[in-house]
């Protein structure tokens, strides 16, 4: 452990501070159980490379998915992940129920209805990702709302946060899973409040494009 810590220190002395305690040359662990698909020559690459330890939330089951996992973390309150897991799985169930019923009731265009709730969730998150955001920059005593590009990670964060915000905003006579499910279904079809929020932000960025140069001057 001491080695890692000194490594991290050295990195910070050299000018940049990595958030990870592992230096950059450490390889990501492979999260797959069936190693048969890898051919041997590929695996030999890892013989002399140090590998980061796997997180304890990594799993190789059918239930696992990266975006689902992130969403799960954002739903969690006070560390009660068990509750959050129940809420999310109920959400996905509601989505799937709605879609499956729709599919079985419309015999002609059966293949058009997507019954994969996880795909719908991913679609919804991708659809509501913003490309730009506004930051307040002070120039000559005036605060300007300046459009700046956004990192990939933050765009994912924002889209999921917006989905949850929209769900929490709704009338709380029904539970969170129902509200979240309808929000996700809307967003996956490119409608709804989250998409509108994203478009509003984009419009504002567009109208504030004249201030864009304040980002560097």
């Amino acid at each position: 452990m001491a080695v890692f810590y000194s490594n991290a220190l050295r990195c910070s002395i050299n000018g940049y501070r990595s958030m990870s305690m592992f230096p950059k040359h450490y390889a990501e662990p492979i999260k797959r159980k069936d190693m048969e698909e890898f051919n041997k020559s590929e695996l030999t690459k890892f013989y002399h490379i140090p590998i980061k330890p796997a997180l304890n939330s990594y799993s190789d089951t059918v239930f696992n998915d990266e975006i689902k996992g992130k969403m799960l973390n954002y739903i969690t309150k006070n560390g009660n992940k068990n509750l959050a897991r129940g809420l999310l799985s109920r959400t996905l169930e509601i989505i799937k129920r709605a879609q499956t019923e729709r599919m079985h009731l419309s015999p002609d265009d059966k293949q058009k209805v997507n019954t994969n709730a996880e795909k719908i969730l991913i679609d919804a998150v991708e659809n509501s990702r913003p490309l730009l955001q506004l930051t307040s920059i002070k120039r000559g005593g005036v605060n300007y709302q300046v459009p700046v590009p956004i990192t990939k990670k933050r765009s994912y964060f924002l889209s999921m946060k917006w989905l949850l915000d929209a769900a929490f905003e709704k009338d709380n006579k029904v539970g969170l899973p129902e509200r979240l499910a309808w929000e996700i279904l809307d967003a996956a079809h490119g409608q709804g409040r989250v998409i509108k929020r994203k478009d509003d932000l984009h419009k504002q960025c567009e109208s504030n494009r004249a201030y864009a140069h304040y980002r560097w001057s």
Partner: protein
Amino acid sequence: MKMFRKHFGNLSRVSTQLQRNVLQLSTNAEASPVEGTAAASVNEFRTAVANPGEHSALHVAKFYTIPVEQKKQIFTGGGLPKQYEQQIKTFTESCLMVRSPALELLHYIKNADLTKPVVRYVLYGDNGVGKTLTMAHVLHYGAINDFLLVHVPWAPNWMKRPKEASNATQEGMLDLPFDAAAWLVHFKTQNAKLLQQLQLKTSKEYVWSKRESTPAGSTLIELVEHGISRIKYATETTVALISELKQLSTAGQCKVMVAIDGFNAFFHPETRIFSDNKQRVTPDRITLTQPFLDITSYDWTNGVCILSVDKLAMTEGYMDSYMPRYLLGTAGFEHIDPFVPVHVDNYTDKEFHSYINYYLDRHWINKTPKGFEEQLKFMSNKNPYTLMQLVKSL
């Protein structure tokens, strides 16, 4: 300058995304993992034989469809678990899997000598293994083969969450008028057609009050309808109806199939119903208990009794084992003593595989990475209810 270009690039991305959103409205199609639902009837996990009387070992682990009309007749007032009802609604078809406990029961019933005193069959097994659905399968058989159904969908409802409890005419007893009336409605919907056909008559006059009475020789439908319209007398009507049914079937005028789910609730040490002096009453002080204990004794013929004992019918502290002797207690066990136990167990490998195929066919499992079936098998321990819960979010 370079920065400017980058910035413009971003803005053009904005506008393309705005357009993309419009497009997204129309195209959200995804290729599903399983195809070919059109050829539903030829699937290897389905069987076209919809008559439970014809099911044999050939059809084990296969699904048969209950026709909509019959499902409406038998299960409108309960009889299928709530989540299963939901599944039926989602899949837009009511399918039941043919399983060995149900086949065993059907075999016994088909070969039983109805002139002998009734045989009591007791379904038992762990939580969520399909006792209720086994019973549903047998009920379907009974409804098709002209049995009058005396079916209690879930007896603990009366002991745990009754609509209302009031004092009965008998000293120290409690009535559950609304529950009794609801049961009479259930009885009527299940047997309306058969009652019309058989024209069963009451043997004696029933006097409810000074002005109200049901004369001897009126039909059972009249008796039931009186109980439904005069909710105050619903419990007494139930008692009368059941004693009439016993007499009629002993006389050979009809066949009766008794099916009581959660039968051990009648022998639970206490209920959640409070008497006037704010004390919990025991089930034997509920008037509704009497007729159903009466019809499960062996002093009548021309009928079958299917009872199920369930851990969930008990309350905390009494749920240690699922064995009939434990759940029924001494009194209950002695009440139904010579009985035929039928053990309902978790899925076999074949049944499990068939169920997974069914879920895939219904587009209920959408994620099929390599080895998912083994994972589900391991995690659910092949327990039907657990499998249902696990698969919900897949």
